[in-house]
């Protein structure tokens, strides 16, 4: 289902929410020309308009959504997508174990010469 950028992000949020207990969410990014990847044997010589855009697809195995990200919408999409990931990705905090020093509990007396 091809959507606009805002609609895509809304549906993506719903995908994340509905797949919290079971299932996985897949998001794919690909560069497109607007033309099919395989060469077609067409006699008509079409002018190749090189308008590159990013095709963003998302699925949870059942529902499929997609959108085209144009050059002018990059920053806006990036900010919204990053905030979406920040809120929806629940990852574990890495516990870094501190090495226990072998020093004794009682501090050593300093070697100050008493006058």
């Amino acid at each position, binding site marked *: 289902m091809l959507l606009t950028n805002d609609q895509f992000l809304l549906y993506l949020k719903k995908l994340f929410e509905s797949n919290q207990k079971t299932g*996985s969410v897949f998001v794919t990014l690909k560069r497109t020309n607007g033309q099919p990847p395989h060469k077609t044997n067409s006699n008509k010589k079409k002018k190749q308009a090189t308008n590159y855009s990013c095709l963003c697809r998302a699925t949870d195995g059942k529902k499929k959504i997609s959108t085209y990200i144009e050059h002018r919408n990059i920053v806006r999409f990036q900010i919204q997508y990053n905030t979406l990931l920040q809120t929806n990705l629940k990852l574990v905090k890495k516990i870094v174990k501190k090495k226990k020093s072998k020093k004794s509990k009682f501090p050593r007396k300093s070697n100050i010469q008493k006058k």
Partner: protein
Amino acid sequence: MVWYFDFEEFYVAAKKLFFSNPLKTRFLFKYRNCDGKVVLKVTDDQVCHKIATKYSQDLKHIKRINNLFIQSMANKDLQTYQKETPKLQNKKKKVRAKH
């Protein structure tokens, strides 16, 4: 298929793969909430680079890779992003002695 354990290495490999074949390379992001696991994959249907994580500290790396791909894929001119050096290299500026 190559599995990576370091995000910096994965970033360099992914960038190299994308700029060698921009129209064929795709970037995949998989998230499973029940396992709390994220898997990133970059492939051009011949070579495949993968990395997995479950730690929140790696979220910034994930965002960085995402940003790289969104910006470079939607942009017409790829050379600007290709020139950016990865953060692996810590370049020290040479200070010339004043005579």
